[in-house]
């Protein structure tokens, strides 16, 4: 499992989102989770509907639990 925690990120443009998709589509690790806890990171993921594909969590504990 790989958790990518964007909690401290205050700007997420398409370059960053492309990397998230790339990571998600790698064979290993099979389970990639993204923590996007603020509007600054969540909003771009929603507009591009990457929330459909990526496992996005609102907090690090939630991502670690997989809930």
């Amino acid at each position, binding site marked *: 499992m790989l958790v990518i925690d964007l909690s401290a990120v*205050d700007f997420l443009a398409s370059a960053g989102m492309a990397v998230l*998709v*790339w990571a998600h589509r790698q064979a290993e690790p099979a389970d990639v989770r993204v923590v996007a806890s603020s509007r600054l990171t969540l909003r771009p993921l*929603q*507009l*591009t*509907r*990457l929330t459909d594909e990526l496992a996005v969590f609102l907090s690090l504990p939630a991502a670690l639990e997989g809930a």
Partner: protein
Amino acid sequence: MTAADGLGPVAEAVRKAFVDAEGRPVAVRVRRLDAADFRGRGRVVVPDAATVAELVPSQRVTGAVVVADEDATVLLHTDDPEGARLAPTAAGVDAATAELTGTVSRLRAEAGVVDALHSIGRRLTAQLERERTLAAELSRSMVPAAPRIPGLDLVTRYLPAATGSKVGGDWFDVLRLGSGATAFVIGDVVGHGVTAATVMGQVRTAIRSYALLELPPSKVLRNVSQLTSRFAEPSFVTCFYAVHEPADHSLTYANAGHLPAVLVHADGTPEQIGEALAQPLGVGAEFPQEKVAFPPETDLLLYTDGPVESRTRDLTLGIGGLLAALGGLRAGPDAGTAWDRLIHDLTGGSHDDDIALIHVRRRDGGAA
């Protein structure tokens, strides 16, 4: 001269390196760089460790130095394995700025590191400038002149990034189709520079081809997404594609991960359309389309994120600011001039990303 925490050897090297014609030290102020130093300075280039090793194999790199001389030439190096090719990513690199308060006539030979760095800095600055020029040229060569369309007033803008080397990924198109309909395309390729500009050229051509076949928007984007996903380099392209059908005053659109478009109704009320309909080209497989009425006195705005998003501006607030400004823009007699002013206001006159937009107004009674 002021001491800078943790910059002892770097500061010392800089101070020793700059002397006047008589060999006397030139007053140099050395301080730690912070992220703000990099903003809006397109010519700052920090080579990564591998580049430095290649260019000066005999030098051991111990820190980063940035020196701005009278030509604003920048020289620096870093041992950060991540390097920092461009400005904002350099935050946190152990770096010093030396501000020269006297005239520098030569660099002292024994300070070979700094001497070598100066030449590296110039080379990288020149490389960066060449790439920026090439990318800008590629992009500009593909900027269409918007055709005259009966019944429509069009304002289009394409402004390459004003700072840094970020030019290259945005485009727009306005296409008259054989049936009398008009297709509007706006898009943004991830990344910047020559690679983004060439990907943009391929995607743009593919969209034009499918558009001229008059495939519906969902199929245009689906086909292009399949093509894009097969490019040698993985690509991520956002695109809003809309077709105006004058016969039934309609607009049919699909959206591949792009910002929503804005429909401004005759009473001035803005409405965002097509929000989060589908994933970007190269990522998504299905691109559902929607259809809305597009009667006379209605405006359509398609835009890229340049005017609304930056490292210092929240996207949501940026879109809000744009929507709020549209009313005033519509009221004026000259939409082109109003747009130039609005872009200037929204970006503070220094946009750090490409800007592309299409503003369409349905003229009263002007159905073709």
